[in-house]
């Protein structure tokens, strides 16, 4: 056993241990305080002169009398099919008073890199019942699609509505939810757990809780534990796992803290230069694998500091994930629920999940046209406030009211309203039919022929 009492320096979550025998990079570490309390950590740097250990819990109480034990192994977590229905802490200890989980296997929480050659391209449409998502930013099984939100916005409601309503049409399959709280408040966590209990989702779910009051450094491993569990359920048990990770911004703050303690050269806005690589090691843990029946779909939530999408956390996330759903403060203020702004939103996998045989042949063209019309309508809304509505041409006026109708009828829906994809598409056509047919240049002629409402019944210009 390699155990030492040679801590030389303590800086934030980091311990500098001297005079050790050779210790492996990323080795799992336990630290034993003089009062018997133990804490866990990991080797961040190792050399003949000293070893840097990152402790996952707070370093309070650690002193030079503390024992540091190096395990010789990387961090592994016990996994089991029996984890379903359990509530665990941010480092995997049961919080629900239930029985100890008897491991079926142990897995490296860093996860392994899926060979791109072994991936299956995600292409199954998940119906969420939310028009702005299904119609215009379609979620696909195995996708990583985050909610980009701001503090105080109803991202949790949206995530819950998705978790509640998500179905793959024509299939009754084994579906599981892994919920991972990263530094969120007790109330927020309760909101999720209560809802999971109410809908029975908890029986088919695993909850990991790192709350705002828990040590921030623990946040480095909580999402990794959650994803290790999700992968186990997906690829060993064949579940289709929806993984909700909230709030990724708190995760990044924890990384920032470690970077600062190590006195690293920072990248943009103080965040470590490896933030992209680190986030990728989380977000890339989604998808489908050839020859395996399950899947991991990720729905991370992040709050953009100052609602700024150029902030490194949303920015680098957007570069890795397969699109993003924007929750907008503007729409929220206008009492639009769900306040999803479709313009900056995107589902990169939409094209492989929609169309003939999946949703409907006109889906893409319809979506593109809605985008084009709404974007132009919004520009004109800005213009109308400056020059007045009357200074606009009749075409422009039509687009202006199109944007309003779009928000009121297409975007807005009830918290429990679960719209089938047909309903969403028909709604789209109702709204588009308030515009003259020949202005719908995004839509091929045969589709206009089939779907455009010649006798428009839509309430024009409301």
């Amino acid at each position, binding site marked *: 056993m390699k155990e030492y009492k040679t801590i030389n320096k303590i800086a934030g979550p980091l311990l500098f241990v001297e*005079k050790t025998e050779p*210790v492996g*990079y990323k080795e799992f570490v336990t630290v034993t305080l003089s009062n018997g309390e133990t804490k866990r950590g990991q080797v961040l*740097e190792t050399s003949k002169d000293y070893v840097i250990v990152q402790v996952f819990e707070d370093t309070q109480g650690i002193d030079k009398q503390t024992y540091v034990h190096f395990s010789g192994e990387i961090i592994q977590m016990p996994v089991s099919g029996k984890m379903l229905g359990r509530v665990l802490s941010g480092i995997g200890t049961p919080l629900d008073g239930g029985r100890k989980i008897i491991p079926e296997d142990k897995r490296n929480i860093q996860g392994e890199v899926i060979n*791109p050659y072994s991936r299956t391209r*995600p292409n199954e449409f998940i119906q969420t019942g939310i028009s702005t998502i299904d119609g215009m930013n379609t979620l696909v099984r195995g996708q990583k699609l985050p909610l980009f939100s701001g503090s105080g916005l109803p991202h949790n409601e949206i995530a819950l509505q998705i978790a509640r309503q998500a179905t793959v049409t024509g299939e009754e399959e084994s579906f599981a939810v892994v919920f991972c709280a990263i530094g969120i408040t007790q109330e927020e966590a309760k909101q999720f757990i209560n809802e999971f209990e109410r809908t029975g989702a908890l029986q088919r779910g695993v909850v990991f809780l790192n709350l705002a009051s828990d040590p921030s450094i623990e946040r480095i491993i909580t999402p990794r534990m959650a994803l290790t569990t999700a992968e186990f359920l997906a690829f060993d048990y064949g579940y289709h796992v929806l993984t909700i990770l909230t709030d990724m911004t708190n995760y990044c703050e924890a990384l920032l803290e470690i970077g600062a303690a190590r006195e690293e050269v920072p990248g943009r806005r103080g965040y470590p230069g490896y933030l992209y*690589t680190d986030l990728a090691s989380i977000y*890339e843990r989604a998808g489908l694998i050839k020859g395996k029946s399950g899947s991991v779909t990720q729905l991370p939530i992040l709050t953009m500091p100052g609602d700024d999408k150029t902030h490194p956390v949303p920015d680098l996330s957007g570069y890795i994930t397969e699109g993003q759903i924007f929750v907008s403060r503007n729409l929220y203020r206008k009492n639009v629920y769900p306040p999803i702004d479709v313009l900056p939103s995107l589902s990169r*996998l939409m094209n492989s999940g929609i169309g003939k045989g999946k949703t409907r042949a006109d889906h893409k063209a319809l979506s593109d046209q809605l985008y084009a019309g709404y974007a132009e309508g919004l520009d004109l809304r800005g213009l109308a406030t400056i020059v007045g509505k009357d200074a606009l041409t009749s075409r*422009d006026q039509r687009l202006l009211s199109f944007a309003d109708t779009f928000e009121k009828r297409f975007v807005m829906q009830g918290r429990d309203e679960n719209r089938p994809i047909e309903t969403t598409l028909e709604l789209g056509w109702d709204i588009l039919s308030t515009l003259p047919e020949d202005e719908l240049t995004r839509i091929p002629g045969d589709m206009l022929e089939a779907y455009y409402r010649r006798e428009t019944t839509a309430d024009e210009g409301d």
Partner: protein
Amino acid sequence: MEVSLSSYSSNTEPRIYKVAGPVVIVENLNGRMYDVVLVGHNKLMGEVIEIEGNKSIVQVYEDTELIKPDDPVENTGTPLSVELGPGLLASIYDGIQRPLPLIAEESSFIRRGVTIPALSREKKWTFVATKEVGDTVKGGDAIGYVDETANFRHHILVPPYTKGTIRDIASGEFTVTDTVCTLEDGTSLTLMQRWPVKKHRPFYDKRWPDTVLVTGQRILDTLFPLAKGGTAAIPGPFGSGKTITQQQLAKWADADVIVYIGCGERGNEMTDVLVEFPELVDPKSGSPLMDRTVLIANTSNMPVAAREASVYTGITIAEYFRDMGYDVALMADSTSRWAEAMREISSRLEELPGEEGYPAYLASRLAEFYERAGRIETLSGGEGSVTVIGAVSPQGGDFSEPVTQNTLRVTKTFWALDAKLANRRHFPAINWLKSYSLYQDQVTPTLERSYPGWVANMKRLMELLSREDELSEIVQLVGSDALPEDQQMTLEIARMVREYFLQQDAFHDVDTFCPLEKQYMMVNLLLSFSDNAYRAIELNKHVDEILDLPSRPMIARMKYERDYKAYSKKVSTQIEKDFNELFGGEKE
């Protein structure tokens, strides 16, 4: 409990001193810069990147988990090299040229320490010798060929800096390591050769790129053309279309060979290429697109040092095909991830950082990379080219950041992606006011010969679009209704150009690829409509009347027409008819 340092071995064998992520410091290595070393008991591949006293700094291409101080290190004494020979095409490799399909036979996940040769040692190729005993050959000369696919002739070249008289040569069935030719001095030549990736392959001379690389993407070919052997940068924030543009080029560019490097990006995007390319047919050769493609995949969650290497691996393969006299196009998506890999390594080395933490040598590395593009005269007097198209992912979408700026300094085509356009689903979201091509003057004379008026048309389109920009500033102040009719007409024509011509749907069967001739016809129709429209305005017709003409939506649908020649004629006749009716007897 406590141990003294003496528990470490004290011999002078190379041993690990320190491990910090992908950076490992080794004592007593006695190596040279860029030597490949094998680190630890698993023999993980790494490369010497700095030497200081008795310590060598090594970047390791694989995860360094559980590597310990005092672990052994072995020096191979050779720099990181790639294998070049038959079997490259249709392959997918990781950043250090390990074949991913073979790795996948073991597990769906990538394990460490795997060593599988890049080119199959078992497969036999039919070699046809084109040189004879007694011929003298030198580096770059072809001694024969292998028909690697139905439509691709892989020339077997004498490696650079080798020369002599052939003592022995024979056609037949050979593996890549069999000797197919022996020189008088005993040098034996095989179908395969190796080349160190960080060194460019030699050529005789560089020439001006003067032929357009046809991409079938309207905004590129017509407004901002790229030349064979040229360089292009595609910067843009996330979701603006870098990857789709790169994939479109990989699919449709009229190059002989495509090298596509997924550098630090999504795993699923590589899967996309793997699924799609074998299904798509190369319009030029009639074979599956995959047959002319080499994929290098270092996804964002793979080790960063290998990400750094992936770009060099790719460009070396590209140069190799160039040396056979082919036109090669290389896409790197994204060069920013490559730069970030450099930053990560540099920060582990505690080097003095430059702007935004990037190393001071960022600019020179980027310049060296793009410098490996070019239209060249090969060592044997032929001509080949490597075109390099690099995606750039500026943080926060801000083009003033170091990677974008340093790239723009060395690339000659700039396709500026714009989030605003992407948000409204105007694709390709290339901003026509910011983008440019410095190859325009070189490549347009040939285009003009085939398509008279090409240059003038292009200039008219650009003028129209910048006029629209000026006018929309006025609209912002007074509203669109306040503009005089002719200016309103300008806005409408510009809208037609944007929506009917510039917008192009990569996912539409027909629209995804637009031949040059079709582009030319579309522009002619638009300009003919425009000329007539202005004349109508002069004759006091109203904008609304003109917009209602049936020929207008017909122009809009042209992009979806497969039989574009017949359709173009139809539309042209309709335009004439529409305006004749509109002018009534007034037209002279």
